[in-house]
């Protein structure tokens, strides 16, 4: 873990006021000033550093990290939904990068407002972004502008919601009942209407209609 820690602060004996600040992270120090000024904040926990930026800015930083600073390995792309929390925007898109020679892990967090739907894609920088961007799109509905193949990955193609959003209930909204039911009737296949399904609101709490339906269905049916 010692590789990740930024260089220690300069000793307090130094009189120069510019040296009062802790030395910047080596990756941040190597960024050109125009790009570096876009970094809003820096988080460090457990010896790992993450830089925080606003959305369109991460593309320039990632390009620089990929080509100038030799971050060859993009470990992961994901997103966080901060719905209902006191944050400057709703979403954060997170990039985890790794540099092989000095074994350095860094993260880049990009704030994404709810109303802005598209994020610049990094497929041309790392091929591993193809599927991770696809999955982030699948789970959060974030559009990666420039990804050539942004279909749904884990969820069905016609799934109407984005399940990892915080306002999506744990137990779903009954989408499984909404798929068309095709049954054989005689010699032909007939499409039934989807079954009605009450909405549950997660955390083990159910609507009264749902409780009623469960009770009704659990009773043995009369012949």
């Amino acid at each position, binding site marked *: *873990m010692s590789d990740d820690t930024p260089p220690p602060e300069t000793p307090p004996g130094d009189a120069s006021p510019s040296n009062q600040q802790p030395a910047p992270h080596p990756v941040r120090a190597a960024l050109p000033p125009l790009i570096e000024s876009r970094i809003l904040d820096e*988080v460090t*926990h457990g010896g790992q550093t993450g830089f925080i930026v606003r959305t369109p800015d991460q593309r320039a930083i990632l390009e620089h990290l990929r080509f100038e600073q030799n971050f060859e390995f993009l470990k992961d792309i*994901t997103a966080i939904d901060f719905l209902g929390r006191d944050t400057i925007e709703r979403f954060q898109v997170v990039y985890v990068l790794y540099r*092989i020679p000095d074994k350095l*892990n860094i993260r880049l967090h990009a704030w994404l407002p709810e109303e802005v739907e598209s994020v610049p894609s990094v497929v041309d920088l*790392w091929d591993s972004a193809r599927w991770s961007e696809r999955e982030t799109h699948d789970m959060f509905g974030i559009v990666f502008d420039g990804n050539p193949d942004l279909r749904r990955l884990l969820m069905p193609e016609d799934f109407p919601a984005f399940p990892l959003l915080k306002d999506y209930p*744990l137990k779903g909204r009954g989408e499984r009942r909404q798929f068309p039911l095709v049954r054989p009737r005689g010699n032909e296949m007939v499409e039934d209407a989807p079954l009605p399904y009450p909405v549950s609101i997660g955390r083990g709490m159910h609507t009264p209609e749902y409780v009623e339906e469960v009770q009704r269905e659990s009773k043995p049916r009369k012949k």
Partner: protein
Amino acid sequence: MNPNRGKSKAPDRRASAPLPSKRTLEKELSKGATGEHLKSVFQVEEEQDEEDSQRLIMNFGPQHPATHGTLRNIFTIEGETIVEADVEIGFLHTGFEKLAEHMTYQQWVTVTDRMNYLSAINNNVGYAVAVEELLGIEVPPRCQALRVIMSELSRIGDHVLCVGLQAMDLGAFSVMLWAFEKREMVYDIIEAVCGARLTTSWTRVGGIMRDVPPNFADEVYRFLELFPPLHAEIHYMLKTNRIFKDRVQGVGVVDTETALSWGLSGPIGRASGVDLDVRRDKPYLGYDQYNFEVPIQDSGDSWARYLQRMDEIEQSLEIIRQAMATLPSGPVVHEDFKTSLPKKQAVYTDMESLIHHFKLVMLGHGIRPEEGASIYSSTEAPCGELGFFVVSDGSDTPLRIRIRPPSFYNYAIFPRLVEGGMISDSVAILSSFHVIAGELDR
């Protein structure tokens, strides 16, 4: 014979006309095309249509035995050659990441078993290490050593099964039976240690569920004695097998740059020359105390991936030997009971432990990492680098847990590799990639 036999009824998204005539016409007309030019354009289209009629779409999976899981590969084939390949995943999607937001840190340990069900211990350990790094606690040395031993045993079980299945897919069925028999020895030890064979749920945040049974050392030493000859036997059987070698050598070649760009890790990355091993690069659980090498291959084909697994088994045996020789005694749970569960016996007899237990287990109390803390922590699982990105909001449930599944990244390159090859080569490539569907879809 019906030429359309085996043709899928499912509509293929990409097989729809590669040159849409109306759009082409409009485009050409907008450029001011003349009659002669348009004629040549339509001729190209006709030729394209004729070519397309030779092709058929074949579904390889999700129920094909060679996929070893629910993977759907959609191949467009011309004769025996795969022209285009696409994959569809998500059949085992269970929403583990969504579940994590509704469970406490301790409860979610059980979910991690279900990801890579062939080496569940490695997932347990990976998750426990991630949360411990988030909390900033270090587990006692005995717990670290036991976690290392069990992870390496589990890795051996995973690799030997993968090699067996790879051989089975290419026709060497007896190797699979031998591999299953060898893996059984690993599972016996795992069962003795935690009572379950597949869904172990062995680790806790801050320790492990209980100390190992008294005959643990004997069993592991017996395994260390019996396994190497069997390993050598499998290796001898396959490395001198002409049929096996012909099927895997030069098939599915991934060069180092491609492997890096696609994020391949673990044995698959190292078989392509990506010199990455989390155990060596970012030693967790005291892996830096043990002397081991990270084997690496440079040819990057299915044969290299087979050799890589066999070499890694040897290194894992070496690590287990060293860890058993220096296995310390002492507690197996982090002694600060603000974050780890006290012993059950102490809970029944000791007031203080009862309070700690209550505070950890009751809903709304539990482990509470610092608000806003986040960490990406990775460990070396048998398939590759298994990462957990944990974000805390200061409550007892995480704000977000993202799993970086190694199989997910390893499988993304698969359609590129099989394009242009034969159908039988796709089996040789897929079996060497060892994709675990539970981990792929989560």
